[in-house]
């Protein structure tokens, strides 16, 4: 009977570049920057790594396929290098590979690195999804974009819970405002300006009802993690961060083909959450989770994730939002580093960037130190989702600073 990954793997070093619009940096530059910080943090050298997982999503736009780009950039010496992609969970997927490798005894020290260079598309927004979803889906999907898909969920959520578009948008605005406040404090973040509720409400519509400030932008960046078996962690540092749960959940596309999906919750997240809490031994996530990084590609994504992750009651997340439950000084700070919204969303890197924030906060080493959360931090959660709404891939990962 599988018992999961809890306390079998530790992260002993991490790195994360600034995220932003870097006309002067290639993906290789970003990879080297993140890697350097990670191995310095871990106190190891390149030759100590015996396996690597490389997460990159839109490879057509940046480095191309396979593990070769990573091996070539870092001059990795004839070790296994696996390229992984699973839409926006790509970074967490890379971490999963590295973690299972060391947990199984197949590897002693494994590298997980996610990188994305999105700013060579030549236009704003993500590359057209029609090129990334296979030859049949040119027909079977409508002419969609990421904001459009989540716009549909916002539309359904407002309808179901009786929110006028104005009232609904105001709840969403409160979420983006919170993330902008956090991002403004973070020198690594892409966007570092606070915005007011009114600015958010009056911003141009990207995909109804979502406006400019409801949508995360497009950024370049990379993040890396070095993992070892948990029992070896203290050989490297006194304050490793332990992996408590790694879950991935993919819907069988029920949402877009079967009338059972209500369009306002994320079934993939709901199930991944339940499995992750079980794996980590968490019984009451609302009480036990210290901080979260959830996939706020759009403000509505964050709102429904609070519910689908069993933190807020179904249909009632807006009460927590308005109470400041998820603010930096709230009960469960969410997106303390600015989130996808402000830190940025270089797709392959995001899952690992989230782990980076959890890692630094759990160690008490947030940069700059003004960003360090003061409460007693014990367990941090990261969440990603990607793909097509109603047919998503979702990851939930939980980390802790104590091995039980």
């Amino acid at each position, binding site marked *: 009977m599988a018992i999961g990954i809890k306390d079998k793997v530790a992260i002993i070093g991490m790195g994360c570049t600034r995220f932003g619009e870097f006309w002067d940096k290639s993906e290789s530059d970003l990879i080297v920057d993140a890697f350097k910080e990670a191995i310095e943090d871990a106190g190891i050298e390149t030759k100590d790594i015996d396996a690597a997982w490389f997460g990159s999503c839109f490879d057509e736009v940046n480095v191309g396929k396979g593990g070769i780009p990573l091996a070539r950039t870092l001059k990795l010496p004839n070790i296994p290098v696996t390229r992984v992609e699973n839409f926006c969970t790509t970074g967490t997927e890379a971490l999963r590979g590295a973690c299972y490798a060391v947990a199984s005894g197949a590897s002693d020290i494994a590298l997980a690195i996610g990188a994305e260079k999105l700013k060579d598309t030549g236009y704003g927004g993500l590359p057209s999804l029609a090129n990334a979803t296979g030859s049949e889906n040119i027909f079977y999907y409508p*002419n969609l974009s990421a904001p459009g898909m989540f716009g549909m969920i916002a539309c359904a959520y407002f309808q179901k819970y009786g929110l006028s578009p104005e009232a609904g948008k105001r709840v969403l605005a409160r979420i983006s405002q919170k993330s902008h406040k956090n991002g403004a404090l973070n020198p690594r973040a892409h966007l570092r300006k606070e915005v007011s509720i009114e600015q958010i409400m009056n911003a141009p519509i990207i995909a109804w009802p979502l406006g400019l400030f409801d949508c995360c932008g497009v950024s370049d960046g990379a993040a890396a993690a070095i993992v070892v078996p948990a029992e070896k962690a203290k050989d490297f540092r006194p304050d490793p961060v332990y992996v408590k749960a790694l879950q991935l959940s993919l819907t069988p596309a029920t949402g877009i083909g079967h*009338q059972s999906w209500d369009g306002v919750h994320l079934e993939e997240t709901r199930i991944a959450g339940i499995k992750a809490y079980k794996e980590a031994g968490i019984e009451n996530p609302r009480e036990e989770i210290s901080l979260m990084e959830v996939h706020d590609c759009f403000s509505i994504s964050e709102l429904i994730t609070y519910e689908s992750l069993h933190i807020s009651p179904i249909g009632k997340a807006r009460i927590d939002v308005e109470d400041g439950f998820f603010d930096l000084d709230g009960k469960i700070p969410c997106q303390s580093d600015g989130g996808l919204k402000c830190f940025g969303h270089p797709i392959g890197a995001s899952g690992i960037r989230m782990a980076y924030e959890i890692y630094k906060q759990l160690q008490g080493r947030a940069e700059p130190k003004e960003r360090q959360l003061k409460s007693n931090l014990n367990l941090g959660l990261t969440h990603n989702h990607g793909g097509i709404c109603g047919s998503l891939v979702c990851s939930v990962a939980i980390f802790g600073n104590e091995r039980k």
Partner: protein
Amino acid sequence: MIGITSYGAYIPRYRLSRKTIFEAIGWFNPATVGVAKGERAVANYDEDSITMAVAAATDCLDGFERDRVDGLYLSSLTLPYAERQNAAICSSALAFRSDIRTADFSTSSKAGTTALLAACDTVKAGELNNFMVCAADSRLGKPGSNLEHIFGDGAAALLVGRDQVIAELKGFYSLTEDFPDLIRGYGERFPRSWEERWIRDEGYQKLIPALITGLLTKYNLAPADLAKIAIACPDNRVLPGIFKKMGLSVEQMQDTLIDSVGDTGSALPLLMFVAALESANPGDKILIVSYGTGGDALLFEITDQIKKFGGRLGTSGHVNLKKSLDSYAKYLVFRNLIPVDVGIRGEDKPMVRLSMMHREGQTLSSLRGSKCKQCGTPQFPKQRVCINPECGAIDKMEDYYFYNKAGRINSYTADNLTFTWDPPGIYGLIDFEGGGRLYMDFTDCDLETVKVGVPVKVSFRRKHVDESRGVIAYYWKAVPIHKTST
């Protein structure tokens, strides 16, 4: 008895007021004020002669088993493909059997009536029983021309057979005259017109009377014997003179639709025929006269069956289902008449894999899905593993079509980021009566008229066009059902 057993029509939703055209471009050719009356139908950016023909045939075939259709003749001056049979694309969209006869009829505005006569002959020959005739056109007049005003977009469909005939073919008379009033070579976008006065004097005023006289003489009939005459003459100023000269009265004249729809080319005589059928009485003799390369005159007699016939939108149902296209510039962009900046995102188009498209077949062309024999769940696209979370059976499916199912909007958005020819791109999830959910683009709607719960029907459209490779990917979109003009 051989004749019409059902009829249908389709006129696109948009109407461009001719005054709007004149205000935009009339400065270039002030004489066009003479034709700047009324309004013309304009196909949406995602429509063409194939999609309109399918829509008209769908109207015609309401309730008729698709499997019983033995052939399709498609007539159009504006066929999208020069090689790749357009009638076959229609036939696939209509989920007809594959062992049928199909053909494209083109190059003359009489092609619609010629196709109709050919279908009648085919059925008369004895072996084939139900034959579909569609005529559709979307011609382009050069900006600044009279033709741009006069042309309109539309389609008609007639089912020819021997069971429950509502209008029996009683006679015909054809003239073939290489009269070069409107000519267009392969590869040219716009037809060229010779002098209008010559067309009037040597064309309409000679050929049309000759066609009418030819038929009446052949069957020993008098003008007064005809209840209605539908003459597809696009010049409203000429027709009254012809009627007077032939001893016909105004009551016998079928509305040419030029003022409300426009000259729909090879579809015009058939659209007028459908309109005549909508208000015909048993015993009426109706004469249909097409014009172009000479023309065809067809004599029909209405039977008692017409009293039992109904339930089609037809011509009159569509004439009044309209929305004003307020902008001449939109018309220019929809018809690709001006270069526009689609941006790098707009250029970033995937390639349509034709072998995949063929393999998917009716799943793409007529929304063929599956119904699980184990749990009864309808699902789309056609698939082998049941999507019902309580079932999951493998290879227990039968075919289930969605082209004729009613749906409602489950959720939607209006997307300003995605590239579309008519922003915003509106799309969402449609829940179908009886089960099944599809993720679809919407068309013929605006954000204001789209709400959760609004009923929709599905419509065959140009979903994705790859100009550089000459591929038009046809697929279905959802259209909110408009009861009235908006």
